[in-house]
């Protein structure tokens, strides 16, 4: 960081605008990666409701995939996906 930039950092660590969390990539924290089986998915969007990182991508009201820049791999979507559907599975990133 340059000296001028350091001086300009807002006093007291205040973040003086909204929505800046999107600029912070948390995808690197992930150990487990969510995988979607589109054939099974009913687009109920329970995963979209439950995801704590807003990492479920939708188009025209349909579940289309994951924002892997922000998904931390917590697996909540896979758990919340209804038992009769189970369209989301978690897989080790290493694989």
């Amino acid at each position, binding site marked *: 960081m340059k000296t001028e930039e350091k001086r300009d950092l807002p*006093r*007291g*660590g205040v973040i003086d605008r*909204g929505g800046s969390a999107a600029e912070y990539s948390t995808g690197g924290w992930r150990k487990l990666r969510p995988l979607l089986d589109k054939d099974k998915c009913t687009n109920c969007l329970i995963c979209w409701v439950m995801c704590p990182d807003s990492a479920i991508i939708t188009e025209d009201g349909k579940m289309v995939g994951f924002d892997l820049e922000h998904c931390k791999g917590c697996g909540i979507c896979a758990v919340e996906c209804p038992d009769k559907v189970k369209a989301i599975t978690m897989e080790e990133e290493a694989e």
Partner: protein
Amino acid sequence: MMAISTATKKQAGLTGNSAVAYAMKQINPDVCPAYPITPSTGVVEEFSSYVADGAVETEFITVESEHSAMSACIGASAAGARVMTATSSQGLALMWEMLYIASGMRLPIILTNVNRALSAPINIHCDHSDSMGARDSGWIQLYSETVQEAYDNLFQAVRIAEDKDVLLPAMVCLDGFITSHAIENLTLLEDSEVQEFIGEYRAEHTLLDTDNPITYGAMTLQDSYMIFKHQQSEAMARAKDVVKRVGKEFGEKFGRGYGLFEEYMLDDAEEAVVVLNSAAGTTKVAVDELRKAGRKVGLLKPRLFRPFPFREIAGAMKGVKAIAVLDRADSMSGFGGPLFTETRSALYELEARPKVVSRIFGLGGRDFKVKDAVEVFDELQKIKKTGKVETLTKYITL
């Protein structure tokens, strides 16, 4: 408030607690979260009466602990409010975690600390262990010898804390019972004078402005944490000049000027005592008595302890041969009290360094009398004559 005389408009006989509560009424802060504790209970009790009577517009928040009181102060201050509270001893100790958050977030909260000893053993009387325990918490600290000084310091604390070059929380300290519960004659300001002096507080950020959302308390890592601490440190160093400027302006407006410390008969003094708060008054009597006997003795009473005006103190002590720094708190370091180590360190820069000793006195409200101060000066005289210090640190008034 009892004992306010209306016949002579501006003169009143008030306890320290009543005077602080009255000052808070005149300041009329937006929010006051508080959890009363001896000996500062009177401040909160009387101020809550002003709230109940509609004499102030303050939102008074009753909380379940001092940790919560300071947390509520932080939340309200981050929302853009002018915030005040009061506490003592264990209460300040319980606030400890939140004190650092208030200063780190650069929130100009004002706290009155009525100095009281810390447990164990439990004791409700005066010493400075509480505020000295918070000396590294990033709060500005002003100390008050008298009820008048406590009253005047509160208004100045608002101006100092809210100054754009500072923006740090400030603590006004006065001695438990000795000052908080003793009635003294003091001169009050008019409400309009107070309001004109402190002005309106306009926070740079407010959590309540939903059109401009902000975040307080975000995580900072290796790339930025140290930068914020550096900013905070520089603001604390700048506070010294603001304290001087505000104290001078207060003097010009109301006839009672304030500096970083008070010098009493120090100009030609060869032996001097350094002591905070009410014990300075006792020491002044001893200085007067010894001066009558031709002794060149003096006193330096720090008013501003945080930031510590090391250069100015060294300048004022130039020429003094023997100094006793009296602490009403022990750092439990085996090396005297906190005021001693800092004063002695400040004096290291002098070319002709004086002998400096630490004397711990008055813990848990133990009396400090004129004869005790005289004994200290007698010991200093011996040190000056022999050039030797027999005991560097010790307890007196035991």
